[in-house]
Structures are given as C-alpha cells and as structure tokens.
C-alpha cells in the first residue's frame, strides 16, 4: 500500500469514527454530514474550476436540480433512497451535458455568464412550476429507506461518507489518468491538443457533465439531510459559497475540496463567536504581515500580492473593534477572507500546503519502464511508392489576399518532400490548410484515397496527419514523457467508467513504455522526467517531433524544424530525420536551410506568391531560373544569375 493510500484511509477512518464523539450531539452530526455533502459538490465543481480552468457559476443550480429530482422521486413516486439518488445523478448528467454542449464552445467570461444564466433559469423554473415543485412555499419530504433500512443521523452520515470515499477513489483514478493529463494539455495549448487528435471538446463536455452530476448527487443528499427544499436556497449566494470552498481549499486537489467543504460549513459558526472571529482576523493579519515582510526587498516596492492581504485582514481586525453586530457584516467578512486568500494564496490552502510538503519531503519519481520495441510503436511502412497524400487545386484566401492558389502536390510513402519558398510564399498556409487548421476556399486533400473533411485539426489528425509547429506548441507544464503520452491515442481505449473504477493502470504502463521508445528515437531518452518548459530550445523542437510521431502518422508535416537550431542540434535533427526515413513515414518538410533540404529531400516543391513555380529533385530545383529569381530577384543578364548560383550554399 502506498503512503498516500494509508493517509487517505486513515483520514476516512477518523471521519467514520466521529459519531463516537458527537453521537449524542445532533448539531455536531448535522455539521459533519454537511461537510461530506459539500465535499462531494466541491469535488464536482473542481473538475471545471480546477481542471478545465473555467469559472463555473452553475453548480448551485445542479445541486438544486439533484435535490428536487431526489425529493420528488421519493415524495411523488415513492422511490427509496438508492434509486432516488440515481435519478438525481442522471438529471445532473443530462442537464450538465445540455448546458455544456453550447457553453463549452465559449471561453472565460462568456462561459461564466452562460452558467450564471443557466443557474438563474433553474431557480425561476423551480419557483414557477408550482404544480410540481410547490414553488416558493417549499417542498417537505421524508428521508426514504436505503435498501429497506431506516437511517438515523449516524447511519445517514456514514452513507454520505461512504459515497464520498467511493467518489474520491474514482475521481483520483480519473484525474491521474489520460483524462486528467489531457485537461492539463488543453490548458497549455489548445491548438496542439487538437493537432494530436484528442477530441478536446468532447472530453470537456463529458467532464463538465460528470462534475455536474456530482453536484446533483450532493443536492440529493442535501434534500434527504434537511428534508425541506426551497428554490431560493440555491441562489447566487449559494453559488458564491461553493466557489469560495473550492478556492479556499485549493484547486485541483481532492483534499482541497474536502478542506474547503469543512471551511464553508464551519466558517458561519466560527464567525458567530466574536473571540473566535477576532483570533482568526489577528492570525490572518500576522501571517500576511510576515509574508509582506519577507518580500520587503522586491524591486519596485511591495507588490500588490503582499499589500492586499494585509489591508484585507487589517480591515477585519478593525471591524472586530468597531462593528456592533458581526452577523450583519457576514458577507463583507466572507469577501475579505476570500480576497486575502485569492490574492495571497492563489493556489488555496492545500496548494500551499502541498508545495511546502513537496519541498520538505522529496517526492520520489516513478521509475522509468523499459522502452517498448520501436517496431511495435512505429511499425515500418510496408507499401512502397504508393501515393499517400494527393492535394488537388487547393486554394486559401484571407479577405482579398490569395495566400494559396490551386496548389497541386503528391507525397509518396517513404518520401521526404521539401516545401520551400521565400517568406510569404504560402508554405505555412499550405500546411495549415492540409492539416485542417484553416478551411480551404477550393480544392481537396486526399489521404490514402479518402478526401479529408477539411477545416478541422482534430479530424485531420484522426485521419493520420501529424504536424509540428513553427512557433512551438508544447504542453509546457507536463514532462517530456507526458507530452508524448498525451498523443498516444491508440493506446488509450478504456471508457470513462472503467477508468474511474481503476482499470486504467495497464494502459498507463504501456503508454509510458511507448512514449519512452519515441523519446529515445529523437535522442531525448534522458530527459523523460524533465518539464517541457525547462528543456533547452533545440530539444523542445525534437520533443514536438516525438509527440507528432506518437500519433502514428500516415503523413508527418514538419514546419521549419531547424529554425533557430545551433549546428550540433542541426546534426541531431538530420539524424532524427534519417531514422524517420528508415521507417518509411512520408514527410512534408518546410525548411529554409538549403543544405538540409538538398541532403534529406527526395523531391522539392517551390512556392512563390501562393503558386507552385517549380518542382523536382533538389538538383533540378537548384538550377531552376524561376527559383533563383524568386529568392534573389532578377539582376540584369545571365552573368549575375550565374554568380548567384555559385553563392547559394546548396
């Protein structure tokens, strides 16, 4: 058993024993139950707020939907607890998907606004559908039986705690799997996530629906806990409280959600006692003063991050002296605490604790597996000389500018096809259209005899086109190994429920071995555990190539892989290209270094002004008068162009 599992089991055992201390105290038991219920809702909310990085203002509404679904299922249909809770989860899943389908096409403020509007709509519906929900008067219900057993306060608490433990395990399995990694990848570079063929949108919708269903489950439990529901209990204030929990506790952390739940349940009680409030305020002020003191040497004066928490906690201390009734200022106190935490500890309490623990105890890295056999990871192409890619009459326009005019291009298996031309000649536009980033104005791209749909990076990637980017698009916060693992689509096949149930480990091991084999191919075997952001520039370019290879491409497009490389790195690149060539993977290579083009390419197509001006073997191209003119302009007479030909490095 790992240390982590021991800690978690210990914490849950402790929580389970709590009724022994509080057993007779109904109030204490109520608070404990509420902590577990909120923890479930917050774990769900953290999926969008933490992992998808979007501000979700709809979780209170999902709690409301779940609460009413469970409540009505027991009161109107006479269902027992388990099916009623299942109904709540289903309602949450469906409503979550319904909201996520349009809303997740949006980002940032629009997403927040969409969820906020959804939340208001839900409260209006619950208030107005009086015949079903009893409207603003509220709905009273009786806690139903669970598998024929009548649950008292302690039994119900254990039920909630058990559910929380199950969900905790499931979410941890999910978030440490390919799913969690693809969310982080998405945050770092949405374009690259599309380019490796992950259906980002689909995953986001699924994750949002899952998070919403947890909110609905919490709502169902809430209904059976209080046995009375009112639509107004799930308004804006409740939503702010939920967000407060996630942010205070710490995003992207199960412990954070748990801690946040504890805080939002206990804070109102703590604030009702003046001495406790004053102690909290004083400790907060002291901590933020110490933090500000540590940053006194910062250039440009004390940063906002140091000053703001001091002001906020200082206001709390002052308030403690002057304010008559703290209860009246409850929201303001909440706001000040939140403000101090959001500014001073942007990662939340658990984020800070986690970082400190990681500094104190060195985390042991998972040992690397043996790399997989390259012939299994990237089989050598069998068919020789067949046409892999055929581009016919491809055009692309930006407003009035014709960036690409009727491009024809063929690439065969085993061929490295050079695409060259002066700056602005349409090379990048050509591969952006072929790889689906831009829609084509006219023409078709045919891969393996099938016409590509066009205009979608993801679909082109799924059809087998993998590419690198001239301006690097790495997942900077992931390690080199993880960058490659994200792209290993063919390894990850298990559906979401099985991953949550913990069956994903075998896939994970296989992916690590395959990713290592690909890293070794590009000479990065020794960098597997290094964060992509910390890699040297040249190495980052090679990592992009490894990631593109992980897609098992039918066609590989390299966009200026040698740009900005030092000469030893260029040698390494030529070596990598040679190894790719050995596996007979067809490549389109955009490059400015003529010596590389001459050495590596079997055929070359030259673009100028969006049109093909020449194509043929590198030797033919080098002496082509049009090409020389395009690169160097016309100088009077043959003498000049002869001199120019000699000056060319190729």
């Amino acid at each position, binding site marked *: 058993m790992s240390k982590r599992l021991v800690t978690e089991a210990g914490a849950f055992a402790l929580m389970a024993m709590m009724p022994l201390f509080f057993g007779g105290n109904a109030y204490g038991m109520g608070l404990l139950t509420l902590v577990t219920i909120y923890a479930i809702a917050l774990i769900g909310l953290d999926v969008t707020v933490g992992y998808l990085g*979007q501000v979700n203002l709809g979780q209170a509404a999902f709690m409301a939907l779940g609460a009413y679904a469970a409540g009505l299922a027991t009161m109107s249909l006479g269902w027992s607890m388990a099916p009623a809770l299942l109904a709540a989860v289903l309602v949450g899943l469906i409503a979550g998907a319904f909201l996520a389908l349009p809303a997740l096409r949006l980002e*940032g403020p629009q997403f927040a606004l969409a969820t906020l509007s959804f939340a208001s709509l839900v409260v209006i519906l619950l208030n107005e559908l009086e015949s079903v929900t009893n409207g603003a008067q509220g709905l009273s219900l009786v806690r139903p039986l669970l598998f024929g057993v009548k649950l008292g306060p302690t039994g119900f608490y254990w039920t909630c705690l058990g559910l929380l433990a199950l969900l905790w395990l499931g979410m941890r399995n999910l978030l440490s799997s390919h799913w969690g990694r693809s969310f982080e990848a998405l945050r770092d570079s949405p374009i690259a996530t599309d380019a490796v063929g992950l259906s980002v949108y689909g995953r986001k919708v699924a994750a949002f629906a899952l998070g919403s269903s947890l909110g609905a489950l919490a709502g169902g439990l809430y209904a059976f806990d209080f046995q009375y529901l009112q639509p107004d209990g799930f308004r804006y204030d409740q939503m702010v409280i939920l967000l407060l929990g996630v942010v205070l506790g710490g995003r992207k952390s199960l412990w954070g959600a748990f801690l946040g739940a504890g805080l939002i349940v206990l804070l109102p009680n703590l604030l009702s006692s003046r001495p406790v409030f004053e102690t909290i305020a004083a400790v907060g002020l002291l901590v933020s003063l110490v933090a500000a003191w540590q940053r006194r040497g910062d250039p440009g004066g004390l940063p906002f991050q140091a000053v703001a928490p001091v002001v906020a906690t200082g206001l709390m201390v002052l308030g403690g002296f002057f304010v008559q009734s703290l209860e009246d200022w409850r929201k303001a106190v909440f706001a000040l605490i939140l403000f101090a935490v959001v500014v001073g500890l942007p990662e939340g309490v658990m984020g800070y604790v986690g970082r400190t623990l990681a500094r104190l105890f060195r985390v042991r890295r998972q040992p690397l597996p043996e790399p997989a056999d390259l012939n299994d990871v990237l089989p050598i192409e069998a068919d020789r000389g067949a046409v892999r890619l055929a581009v016919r009459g491809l055009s692309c326009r930006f407003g009035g500018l014709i960036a690409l005019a009727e491009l024809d291009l063929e690439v065969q298996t085993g061929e490295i096809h050079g695409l060259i031309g002066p700056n602005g000649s349409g090379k990048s536009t050509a591969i952006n259209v072929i790889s689906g980033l831009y829609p084509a104005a006219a023409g078709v791209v045919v891969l393996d005899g099938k016409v590509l749909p066009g205009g979608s990076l993801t679909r082109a990637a799924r059809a087998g086109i993998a590419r690198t980017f001239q301006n690097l698009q790495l997942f900077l916060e992931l390690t080199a190994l993880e960058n490659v693992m994200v792209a290993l689509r063919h390894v990850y096949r298990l559906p979401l429920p099985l991953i949550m149930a913990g069956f994903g480990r075998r896939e994970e091991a296989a992916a690590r071995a395959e990713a290592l084999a690909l890293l070794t191919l590009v000479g990065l075997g020794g960098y597997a555990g290094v964060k992509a952001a910390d890699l040297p520039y040249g190495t980052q370019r090679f990592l992009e190539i490894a990631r593109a290879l992980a897609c098992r491409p039918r066609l590989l497009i390299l966009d200026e892989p040698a740009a900005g490389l030092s000469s030893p790195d260029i040698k390494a690149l030529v070596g990598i290209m040679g190894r790719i060539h050995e596996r007979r993977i067809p490549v389109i290579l955009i490059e400015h270094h003529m010596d590389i083009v001459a050495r590596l390419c079997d055929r070359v197509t030259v673009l100028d002004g969006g049109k093909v001006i020449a194509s043929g073997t590198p030797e033919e191209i080098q002496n082509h008068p049009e090409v020389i003119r395009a690169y160097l302009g016309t100088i009077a007479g043959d003498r000049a162009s002869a001199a120019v030909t000699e000056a060319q490095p190729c």
Partner: protein
Amino acid sequence: MQWMIIGQMAVSGAAMGFVYALVAYGFQMTYATSKSINFGQGELVMVSAFISLSASDMGLPYGLVVPVGLLSGAALGLFVERVAVRFALAQKGEGWILMTIIVGLFAVSAAENIWGKDERPFPTPISRESLDLGGGISVTPVELSVAFGVVLVMVLVEIFRRRTLLGKAVDAVSADRDAAELMGISATSAIAISYALSGAVAALAGILVAPITSVGPTMAATLILKAFSVAVVAGLQSGSGVAVVGISLGVLESLASFYLGSGWRETPGLVLLILALALRPNGIFGTATIRKV
C-alpha cells in the same frame, strides 16, 4: 384592444431595455481593452445610486446629483480595476471573475449596513405623469428621460473614442495591446480609463432606473443578469449591437410577464441567451477570430 396592450407593453418594456443596453455597453468597453468585465457591475450600479440618493438627501439639486453620481461611478470603476482586475490580469487567468464577484459581495454587505436593507424612492424633478401618444398608448417623461440619457451617453462615448487623443489611445489598446504599448501607450492606463468610463456609464444607468425601480441593496440583482444576457447575445465586441438587443429584450420581457405571469419575466432573456450560445456563440453581432500559430 389587443394591439393597444401590446403597444403599451412594448413602450414600457423598451424603457427598461435602454437601461440593459447601457449596462451592457459598459461591459463591452472594458472587454474591448482588457478582455475582462466587472461581474460586480450590478453592485456598482446600486452603490452609485445610493450615493446619488445621499447627495440628493443632503439637499443638492438634481443638476448636481447626476454629476456626483457619475463621478462616484467612475471612482468605483477605478477602484474595481485597481483592486480586482489589474493583479488578476497580470496572472493571465480568469481570476478577475472571482475577484470582481468578491468586491461586489463586499459592496452589498457595506450598502446594507450603511443605507439599510429597505427599498427607498428616488426623487426626480422629471414628471411621472403619463403623456398620451395616441391610440391609447402612453409614456411617462421619466421613461423618455431614460431613453434620451442612454442615447446621449452612447453618442458622447463614441465621440470620445473617435475624436480625442485619449479615446484613440484606448481604442488602440483594444485593437492590439502589444502594438499600442510599442507606440508608447500605457495599456494599464487605457484599461483603467475604460473601467472608469464603464463605472460612470453604470452609475448613469442606476440614476436613470432608480426613479422607476426605487433604490435598495438588491435593486440591480436582476438588472445585471439581463445586462449580461444582452452583452453575450449581442457579442462582447459590438457597441451598437447591444442597443438593438437590449431594447428588444426589454420589450420581450414586458410581453412575457403580461402573458405568462410576472414570475416568468426573466425567462426570455435567459432563453434568448441559451439560444444565442447554441447558434452563434460569438454573439449575433460578434465575429469569430482566426486561430494563429
């Protein structure tokens, strides 16, 4: 008879629609410069209205109450930018959403304690006597003043943007922040200016709507939701689009509350919003941008 009621509903709905449009216009301003909006804008509307009410209670004439309200709105806008937005924008995240919500939460609590939780009437020299427009449709001068004030301020802001150097600087930051900074324009100041303007616009919305709704800590809670809807439905890039969508929404709402019952008043806005999100996520008047690599 039927058409007369619909016409009357449309006229009184349009008055509110102008206010939605004005608040949404304020969102559009800050979104242009900084891709952020103040989620506590409703609280800003409310606090500015309370400050104007206090100014009026102190015996200031209406002609001075309005500038006091506008200035306090601008000051509050600057405060929100400094406290909640600048730091969060520097962190390159959506932190400002949360931060502006927090500032709004504080404002509600402060307003409840300073001015009390009760709704209070807002004095105005403008008459509330109905004017007959003919055909049985009538309008009050207060409603007319709302429309007039909204159009006036939108025109003024457009002139500021197009004709003054400062306005052009703000526009330059909206168009391309990096390029503007290379030309020596401080993006931070431009964003601050846009927040001040947006705050003043919100304050004006508060002053104009207060005689109709009365002033209280929750006066803007529903107003702001609709302004959000208007901003998203019209698209956060389009200034003129918000006027069209805002007024239509006001009319639709008024009709919905008449035919479906007052509880359903807010539904058209929300349904419109969800439809717009599903069909045109960038807004009716918005444009999709090309992804660059």
